[in-house]
C-alpha cells in the first residue's frame, strides 16, 4: 500500500531553509549586531555609507596648530648629531622608483628614531663631574682622607683597603662593577660583592695564581694557576680544569663573543669559547712570553705588547697579526685600551707613555707623556681618565689625550697616591668613581671623583641586577653572541662588499699558466647489437675527447694571451690598439650586426 498525496491538497508549509532564503532575498539588509548608542537606537532615518571625512577641516587644523607648537621642544643639533647613525642613503644611488621611495621613507623613520633617541637624553639624570680646586689650590694636593671626609657616607664606604698576605695580587671587577675578584700569587683567591662587602668565597688553590678573570656572569670566574686554567663558581666550587690552556700568564674576557682569551708563557694565544667549551683559536704568536695583553672593547681584537716595543693585534681565526704597531724603541711595560676602543695607551721602559689612535692606526701617537720613571701599570676609565703607576706611586689624569688635572696648572696630575707596596694591577670600577689597586700587600679601593660613567644602561650592565635579571641577560647575551670569525680590525667590515685581494688575483692569473686539460670521462650510450662495434665506439670516444681538449687548450691560450697583453710593458695602450685592429676589418655581413650605440654629444 502506498500513500500518495491527494491531488487537490494544499502545498505543505514552507520548510525552514526555504523560508530563510526568502527572508534573505526580501530583506537584503543585515542587522548590525553591535549594540548601538541610544540616539542611534531610536533612529528612524536611512543608512548612508560614508567614508571617514574631516568635518571642518580648516577649523581643526587651526586648533591643531595652536596646540601642537609648544608641545615639543626642539632638540639641539649637537645632541642629534650625537645619536645620529651616519649619512643617509643618497636616493640617486638607488635603482627603480619603488626602492627610491622606500628608502626615502626609511630615512624619515631613521631620522625619527634618532630624534626619539635624542629625546631620551632627558632621562640621563646623573651628570658627570670632577673635583674642582679652589683658587690657589690644585686637585693634586687632595689626599684620599680629605676626599673621604668630604663625601657622603655611601661614597665614603667605597674607600677601603685590605691587607692580605699572599703575595702580589691581581684583581678584576665584573662588567657591571658590582663584584670583585682577587687573586694572590701564592694561591689566595677571593670573590666578593665589594659594595656590600659580602664575601662569596675565599680559598687557597695551593698553587701559584697568575691571573684571575670573571666570565660573562658574576657567578663564574677563571683562575690561571701554575699549570692550567681552572674555572670556579661563586661558591668556590671547581667547575672545570682546562688543560689545553697551560701556563697562562694573562687572561681577558670578550663579553660579546663569550671568549676567554689567554696568553701563556710560551707565546701561545688562545681563545676559549666559554659557551660551548671549545678552543676557537690556539696558536703561537712567536712573541715569546706574553706579559701584557688587553682586548680592544671596540672590535674584540687582542692587543699583545711584546719585548721589542711592538703591540700586535690578533684575531682568533687569523694566525698572523692583523696589525703591528711599533710603539716604543724599548720593551713595553704596560698597555691598555680605553673602554670605547678608540685609544691605545702604552708605556715603555723609555719612560714614555703614548696614546695611539686605534681606528686610524697612524704611525704617530696622539699624545706623549714624559715621565720621570717608567710606568708599570696603565688604566683608562670610562670617562677617559688615565691612571698610571710607577712602582708604589700612582697618579691619575683627567684626560687621556690632554693629561693634567682640572684647571691644568702646568699639567699637574688630577690625583695622586702613594701605596704601601708595589702596584701590580689597577682597574677602574665601571659605573663607580672608584679605582681598585692591587698591590703586593693587598688591595686598596681609592675614590677618584668623576672617573666612572654616571648613567648606566640597565639592559647592558646593571649594577643592581637581581638573579632573575642576570639569568635573562645571560640568555639574551647568548642569543646575540658574535661569532669569533667576525673579530676584525674594522668592526664595520661586515657591512662591506667582499673583493678579492691583490694576492688572490695574482694567484688566479698565475694558475692559468699551469692549467692542465681536465680528464674527460665519456660513457657512451649502450647501443643495440649491430649498431657499431667496440672499435667504432672507441674511435668516437677518442674523437670527442680530442675535440674537447682542443677547445680547452684554445680557450686557455686565449686567456693567457689576454693576461700577457694586459701586463706587457707599455701597459694597456698597446693592447687597446691591438684589440681595435680586427674590428676595422669589414665584412659584407656586418649590416646584420647590431648597430653600435651612438655616443651622446655633450651639450656645451
Amino acid at each position, binding site marked *: 500500500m502506498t500513500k500518495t498525496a491527494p491531488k487537490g491538497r494544499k502545498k505543505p508549509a514552507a520548510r525552514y531553509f526555504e523560508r530563510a532564503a526568502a527572508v534573505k532575498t526580501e530583506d537584503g539588509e543585515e542587522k548590525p549586531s553591535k549594540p548601538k548608542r541610544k540616539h542611534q537606537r531610536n533612529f528612524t532615518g536611512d543608512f548612508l555609507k*560614508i567614508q571617514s571625512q574631516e568635518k571642518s577641516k580648516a577649523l581643526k587644523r587651526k586648533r591643531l596648530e595652536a596646540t601642537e607648537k609648544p608641545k615639543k621642544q626642539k632638540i639641539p643639533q649637537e645632541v642629534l648629531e650625537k645619536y645620529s647613525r651616519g649619512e643617509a642613503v643618497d636616493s640617486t644611488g638607488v635603482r627603480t622608483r619603488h626602492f627610491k621611495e622606500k628608502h626615502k621613507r626609511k630615512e624619515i623613520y631613521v631620522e625619527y628614531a634618532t630624534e626619539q633617541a635624542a629625546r631620551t637624553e632627558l632621562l640621563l639624570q646623573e651628570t658627570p663631574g670632577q673635583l674642582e680646586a679652589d683658587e690657589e689650590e690644585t686637585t693634586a694636593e687632595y689626599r684620599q682622607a680629605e676626599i673621604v671626609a668630604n663625601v657622603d657616607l655611601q661614597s665614603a664606604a667605597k674607600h677601603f683597603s685590605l691587607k692580605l698576605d699572599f703575595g702580589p695580587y691581581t684583581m678584576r671587577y665584573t662588567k657591571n662593577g658590582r663584584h670583585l675578584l682577587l687573586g694572590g700569587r701564592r694561591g689566595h683567591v677571593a670573590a666578593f660583592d665589594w659594595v656590600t662587602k659580602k664575601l662569596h668565597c675565599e680559598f687557597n688553590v695551593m698553587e701559584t695564581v697568575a691571573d684571575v678573570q670573571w666570565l660573562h656572569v658574576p657567578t663564574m670566574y677563571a683562575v690561571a694557576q701554575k699549570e692550567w686554567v681552572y674555572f670556579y663558581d661563586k661558591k668556590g666550587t671547581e667547575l672545570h680544569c682546562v688543560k689545553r690552556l697551560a701556563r697562562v700568564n694573562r687572561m681577558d674576557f670578550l663579553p660579546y663573543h663569550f671568549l676567554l682569551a689567554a696568553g701563556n708563557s710560551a707565546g701561545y694565544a688562545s681563545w676559549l669559547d666559554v659557551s660551548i667549551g671549545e678552543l676557537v683559536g690556539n696558536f703561537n704568536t712567536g712573541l715569546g712570553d706574553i706579559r701584557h695583553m688587553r682586548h680592544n672593547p671596540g672590535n674584540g681584537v687582542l692587543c699583545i705588547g711584546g719585548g721589542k716595543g711592538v703591540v700586535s693585534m690578533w684575531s682568533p681565526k687569523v694566525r698572523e697579526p692583523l696589525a703591528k704597531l711599533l710603539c716604543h724603541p724599548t720593551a713595553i711595560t704596560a698597555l691598555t685600551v680605553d673602554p670605547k676602543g678608540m685609544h691605545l695607551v702604552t708605556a715603555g721602559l723609555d719612560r714614555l707613555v703614548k696614546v695611539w689612535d686605534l681606528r686610524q692606526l697612524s704611525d704617530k701617537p696622539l699624545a706623549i707623556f714624559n715621565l720621570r720613571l717608567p710606568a708599570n701599570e696603565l688604566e683608562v676609565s670610562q670617562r677617559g681618565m688615565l691612571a698610571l703607576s710607577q712602582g708604589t706611586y700612582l697618579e691619575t689624569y683627567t684626560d687621556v689625550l690632554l693629561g693634567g688635572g682640572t684647571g691644568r696648572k702646568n699639567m699637574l696630575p688630577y690625583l695622586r697616591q702613594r701605596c704601601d707596596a708595589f702596584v701590580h694591577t689597577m682597574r677602574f670600577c665601571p659605573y663607580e668613581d672608584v679605582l681598585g689597586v692591587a698591590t703586593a700587600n693587598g688591595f686598596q679601593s681609592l675614590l677618584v671623583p668623576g672617573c666612572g660613567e654616571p648613567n648606566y644602561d640597565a639592559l647592558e650592565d646593571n649594577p643592581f641586577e637581581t638573579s632573575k635579571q642576570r639569568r635573562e641577560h645571560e640568555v639574551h647575551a647568548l642569543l646575540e653572541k658574535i661569532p669569533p670569525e667576525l673579530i*676584525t680590525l674594522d668592526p664595520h667590515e661586515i657591512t662591506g662588499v667582499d673583493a678579492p685581494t691583490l694576492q688572490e688575483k695574482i694567484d688566479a692569473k698565475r694558475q692559468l699558466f699551469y692549467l692542465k686539460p681536465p680528464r674527460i670521462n665519456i660513457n657512451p650510450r649502450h647501443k643495440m647489437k649491430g649498431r657499431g662495434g667496440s672499435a667504432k665506439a672507441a674511435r668516437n670516444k677518442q674523437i670527442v675527447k680530442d675535440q674537447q681538449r682542443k677547445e680547452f687548450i684554445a680557450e686557455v691560450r686565449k686567456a693567457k694571451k689576454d693576461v700577457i697583453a694586459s701586463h706587457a710593458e707599455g701597459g694597456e695602450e698597446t693592447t687597446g690598439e691591438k684589440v681595435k685592429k680586427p674590428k676595422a676589418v669589414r665584412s659584407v655581413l656586418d649590416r646584420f650586426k647590431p648597430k653600435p650605440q651612438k655616443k651622446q654629444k655633450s651639450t656645451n
Partner: protein
Amino acid sequence: MSDDEEQYDPIAHKKLLQAVSSLGNVQHIRKSTRDERQPEQNEFQLFKSANATDHAAKAVGVNDLVQILRTSKHIETGKKLKNVHSTKKVLQKPLEKPVADRIKRTIGYEGVKKKLARWDAVVAKQRSAETQIFPIPSETIYVNTAAHSNAIKTSIKSELGKELQASIKKLNDLRKVQTGDNTDEQELAQEEERLLAQKLTRDELHARRRELAYLRMRESQKSAKARMQNKIKSKKYHKLLKRQKILEQVKQFEILKKTNPEAALEKLNALEKSRLVERASLRHKNTGTWAKNLQMRAKYDKEVRKDLAEQLAVSRQLTEKKVDTDSEHEEQTTTKIETNVDESIADPFNPWMTLKQTENDEPKAEEEEVSWRKYWTERNQNEKLLTDHNAEVEQVKREKRQQTTQPIKESPKKKKPKIYMENGWQVEEVEEANEAPAKTKTLDEIFDAQKDNLNNHLIHKLNNLKRQAALLKRLSKKSKKPKMKHDALKNLKDLTFKKTKQRVEIDEPLNQDELEPKEAVKVIEAVNDLPKSKEEKNSTAKVADIDPDKVIPITWKQKMRLSDVVNDALADDDAAEFDEADPVAERQMLISEAFEDDDIVADFNKDKKDDSEVKNNELQLAMPGWGCWGGNGISEKVLERRNKRLLLKLAEPEKRRDDNKDNVYINEASNKQARAHRVSSIPFPFKSLADYEASIRTPIGREFVPETAFRMLTRPAVITRKGQVIEPMDESELVKPDRRLRHVVDKRIKRQEEQAEKAKRLLVD
C-alpha cells in the same frame, strides 16, 4: 521600303543588338557564394551573373512612382518625393564583418581601458604603501533623516536645489494634513533637544544604574537557565515538557472558549496548524503506528517493502537541500573579477608588465684589474664633488630667487576652493575664472610691485633697528657701562634674532644661557666678529676633518709639584714623599738604558717589508733551453736580456694602507672566514657601496632604538583583522579622501612629498 519599316521592330531590334553584344562575352559563370545559411550547398552548382542573365523587367523604381504621382492629383507629394529622391544619398556599403568587429573591439578596449585607468592612482598608492590595512577601514555614519530632526547643513544654492527643498516641504505638509498629524515639528525638536540637554540628577543616575544592573543580572540568569535546559538530553524530560506545554495551551483554550469564542477559534486553528506543520516536517516518518506496521510487514511482503522504499525516497527528496542557483552564478562572476584584479596587480616589478625598459647602465667594472672598493670610492668621490658643486650653484640661485620671490609670496593668497560635504560626497565650489586678469598683469607691473615691497621691507627694518638702538642706548645708560654700550651698538646687525615668545623658565639649572657678565662680554665680542669671520669660518669647517697624519702629538712632562715658589711652599710635607725616587724604578731605568737599542726599529721595518711583499708576482715566460743555441756570439747578456724581457709581472704594486707609515704594519689579507659573511657584490637596488652601507647602518632592534621608533620601523606590510572577510574594492574607493594620518612619521613623509611636489611646480614655473 514600307515592309522595311514594317519589319522594323524596336523590341526585336534591341534583342538582336543585345544578342550581338553578348556574343563576344564569355559566359559569366561563377561559383555560388555562401552568403546565406543553407542546409545544403552544392559545390558544383554554377550560375550566371546577374547582368548576364538580366532579362527580367526592371523593378518599379521611385521615379516611376513620381511620374505617376505627377500626373495624378497628388502633385505636391510627387514633388516632395522627387526632392527626396534627388537629395537622397546612397548608403555606404556596410563594412565587412571582421573589420566591423575589429572596430567594435577597439572601441570596447578603449572604453574598458578608460574605466580601468581610473583605478591607476589607487593601485599605485596601494602598491607603494608601507602598510596596507584590510579590510579597508571605512566608517558608517548615521544620519538622522527624521522629519523633525535638524536638516544636514548643506550648501544647496542652485535653483533646482531650492525648488526641491520647497517641494519636499510641501509634500511633508500635505502628508501631515492627510494623516491628521498635527504635531508641531519645531516643538518636537525643541523637546528632544531639551531632554538631551537636561542633565540627570545624581539620584536619577543611581537609580538608572541600579535598574540597568538588575536587568543585566536577570538577563544573564535567564540565559544561563536556558543554556542548562538546552543541555538536557533526556527524551523523557522533553516529552514531559512538551506535554506540559500542550496542556497549558489547552487550558488557555478552554478559558478562551468561554470568554472569547472568536479568539478561541483562531487559537484552535493555530494549534491545528502547528500540528500539521509537525506532521509535515517528516520528523515522524517512521515513528507512527502506520509506519511501524509497515516495517513489520515489510519483512514478509515484497510489495510493502517496495512501498516503504518509495516513501523513504519521497522523504529524502523533500528534505534535500535546494541549491541556490543564483548565488552560485554570482560566485562565479566574483571569482572572475578577482582573477582579473590579480592579473592587473600581478608582479609590480615584472618588466613585461610595466612595458618599460629598465636601464641597464651598470658600469662593467673590470673586476680583474680594479678592486671594488677602490672603484667605488673613486666613483663616489667624483659624484660627491659634482653634487657639492651643484648644491653650491643651486644655493646661489636660491638666494637670488628668495630675494625676488619673497615679495611675491606676500601677494594676496589664492583662496582654496571650499569643500563641503554632501551625503558623503565632496563638493568643491567651482571658482569663477578669476585668474585671467591676474595673468594679464604685465611684467613691469610685477617688477614695480616687487620694488615697492622691497622698499617697504627695508624701511620697516630700518625703523626697527633705530628703535632697538634707542632702547639699547637707554639701557646702557642705566647700567653705566660705556664699553657695553659700544658693543651693543656694534652688534645691532646680529641681534635681529629675538625670542618670539617669553616662556616661564621652570627648570633653572637646565637653562644654559646663564652666563657670567665677563663671559657675556666675551660672547658679544665673538658675535661681533661674526660677519668678519664668515669666510674664515668656511675655511675652519674644512679644517674640522683633520688629516690624521699631520697631527702633531701633544707632549708634556710629568711634574711633581708646581713650579712657582709660592705654591712650592704651599705644598704639603707628604708631597716630599712623592719626590724621592723609588730604588726599584731606578734599577728599571738602568736596565732600560742598557738595552736601549736602535735595532728595534730596523727589525720592525724589515719584518714589515717581508710581510707586506706580494708573493709569486712574477712569471717567467721564457722556456728553458729555447733560444740558447750553442756556438759563438751567443752571450749571457743577450740571454739575460731576453729573460728579462719575457719576465711577466702579474700585478702592479698597489698602495697599501700602511704605506708611508713607518711604525705600522697592517695585514691586508683579511680574515677568510669573516669574508664568508660578507656579500660578494653590491645587492640589487643600490648602485654604490656607500649607499648599501648607509642602508644597513641603522639597527632596528628594540635594544638599539627607542620603543616608538622600533614599532614604526617594524610595522608589518599588511595588517588584517582576524575573522573579517576582505572584500574587493568598490567604486567608492575612487572618490575616497586620504585617511587622516596619526603618526608623526607618516605626517612627515606626507609633508616631504608635498614639498617635493611644490618644488617641482616651482621649477616648472
